[in-house]
């Protein structure tokens, strides 16, 4: 269960989230939609604990635990995962090595035994198949020279590898063609389960025809201004954000 209570977040001295309240019960998938500049990325970075995203007041509770004092890596070890809108390149570090390092760092933090290179490779291969990620991509430097679609597929691959308890997908649909979108949506849907909480952040309704959420929340000017069932996406698609929030988007 993710509970965000009256959250105010400041970035570079400017308040971006202004009293955001939202709760996602365990096992559900909720979507947050909103126009550009509404605070969607700030919400995702704040959940992942990025430095510079200062919580002024309010709380983020995940399964009853306050996330605010935890560093980003500690959150990851507790099962928080953010699929990023703009995955970062790390030259010289092969993708497979990165995945192994990350997986084992999380396991270590949870006092689980580390997996050797072979085990990791086997595990990654299984997950890679479903996302049509070729073996060759795993040997390339992380995200270096990857197309937009490859980067997003790798994000979802990581999600399925780490098996997080809370998965936040930030604009995972941006830059994808329809086939890639469908494939990614399938992988995400396959991960839905009674013990996993998911938050899908998106600008467009498109993704939500493939990943049908339990609830949709509309974010505008740093707050949730409307919540509803999956049908809300269609209303937004038809009438735009302006209709709901009374300002041009």
């Amino acid at each position, binding site marked *: 269960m993710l509970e965000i209570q009256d959250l105010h977040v400041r970035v570079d001295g400017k308040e971006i989230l202004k009293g955001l309240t939202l709760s996602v019960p365990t096992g559900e998938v909720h979507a947050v939609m909103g126009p550009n500049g509404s605070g969607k990325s700030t919400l995702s970075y704040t959940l992942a604990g990025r430095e510079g995203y200062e919580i002024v007041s309010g709380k983020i509770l995940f399964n009853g635990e306050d996330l605010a004092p935890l*560093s980003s890596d500690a959150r*990851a070890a507790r099962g928080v995962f953010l699929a990023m809108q703009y995955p970062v390149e790390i030259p010289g570090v092969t993708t497979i090595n*990165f995945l192994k390092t990350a997986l084992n760092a999380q396991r270590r933090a949870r006092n689980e035994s580390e997996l050797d290179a072979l085990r990791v490779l086997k595990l990654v291969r299984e997950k890679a198949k479903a996302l049509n990620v070729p073996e060759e991509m795993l040997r390339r430097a992380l995200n270096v020279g990857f197309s937009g679609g490859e980067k997003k597929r790798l994000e979802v691959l990581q999600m399925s590898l780490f098996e997080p308890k809370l998965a936040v997908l930030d604009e995972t649909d941006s830059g994808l063609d329809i086939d890639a979108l469908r494939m990614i949506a399938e992988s995400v849907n396959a991960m839905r389960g009674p013990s996993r909480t998911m938050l899908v952040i998106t600008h467009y309704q498109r993704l939500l025809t493939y990943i049908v959420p339990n609830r949709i929340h509309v974010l505008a000017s740093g707050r949730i201004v409307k919540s509803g069932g999956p049908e809300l996406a269609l209303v937004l698609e038809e009438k735009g954000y302006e209709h709901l929030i009374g300002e041009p988007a």
Partner: protein
Amino acid sequence: MAAIEETRERVADIAGEKYKYGFVTDIEMDLAPKGLSEDVVRMISAKKNEPAWMLEWRLEAYRRWVKMREPNWARVHYPKIDYQDLRYYAAPKSQGERPASLEDVDPKLLETYKKLGIPLSEQKMLAGVAVDAVFDSVSVATTFKQKLTEAGVIFCPISEAVREHPELVKKYLGSVVPVTDNFFATLNSAVFSDGSFVYVPKGVRCPMELSTYFRINASETGQFERTLIIADEGAYVSYLEGCTAPKRDVNQLHAAVVELVALDGAEIKYSTVQNWYPGDEEGKGGIYNFVTKRGDCRGRGSKISWTQVETGSAITWKYPSCILRGDNSVGEFYSIAITNNYQQADTGTKMIHLGKNTRSRIISKGISAGHAQNTYRGLVSVHPKALGARNHTQCDSLLIGGNCGAHTVPYIESRNPSAHIEHEATTSKIGDDQLFYCLSRGIGQEEAVALIVNGFCRDVLQQLPMEFAVEAQKLVGISLEGSVG
């Protein structure tokens, strides 16, 4: 912010423990009196039972040195060294007589090497590495002698080579780095006490990696090793040196000389993992590493390749170079220099193209963190007769934090219009976005920095012999602990 603060504090807590090689071995020492004079040079020579010609060679160097001045062109700053306040010879007492086998070596010494993780014991045969270990001034044990002898390879302390292979030593010692070369090399020529000697005969591929571990133990003692490696026609040898020293809050001087000679078609690969004590967080203590390393590609089609991972020392002043004398010879220099806290490094290479169709390649990766200053200084020189010479240089600098500096000083001289010389340089910072990406995947701050820096150094790490590449990768991480925040 909280996370960074916490990391910082944690790192500060363990900083005292960070340099794990900082222990001192309590052992009875045979010490020279402080200061340098002809008498001290004579004493060193006598301790080694050297022939007269060797003593003369040393004395000539000493007389030159007295008239020389310490160089000051490097971008490093340190208080004046009082050369009369140093000791020029220190040896474990029990080593007065050279041990006949490993069983005769003082167990305390072996314990020290065990702590350092050196595969000195012959049980570690599987590692396939022959080790010559130099403790302060004396070479302590050379492993795998038998197997090397069978192949005709000579690998022994240089003091032994002076006595047993004088014809080779006379012919090659000082032939690459002349006695008069520079202040520190001349000093070394006068007082060098030990080091390794390697001779690989014609057409022999040395059956194993050769390795030397240097360890400074005694305080207020300089260490002056001398290494001489000769690969005869068509021979091949790969050699690795590793260095550590105890933590002391006074600076210690290390002025070594390494000479490599590659004859026709020979290849020498020389790798260094240098982890001398770098000083503490405030820049107190640490080794002054003033080293002259040079290889002479004397024969046609010969090749010399330097790979260095420099993580330690308070000050590094070091330019492993290649003289590309033989036609079609090849020189390579792969370097990682990491400076943290108040470390200073001024390091690079010289590629001197004399022969036709000579080629050289330079890849330098400089990483600066804390208040460190890191300078790449390199010379590519193409002489008039070096028809068709080629060089490619790539210099990449990585900055961590806002108080450090990276400097690149390339000197390029071409006196042959057919030369192709390329120089590429980049400077970058570890991005917040890269760090955050790693953190968000559960990788801790220190591990993330190590991962990113290792990626940055990958081209060079790949050049190291396998078994040392792993050690070097770990070292990269350790030496940058506490650098972010």
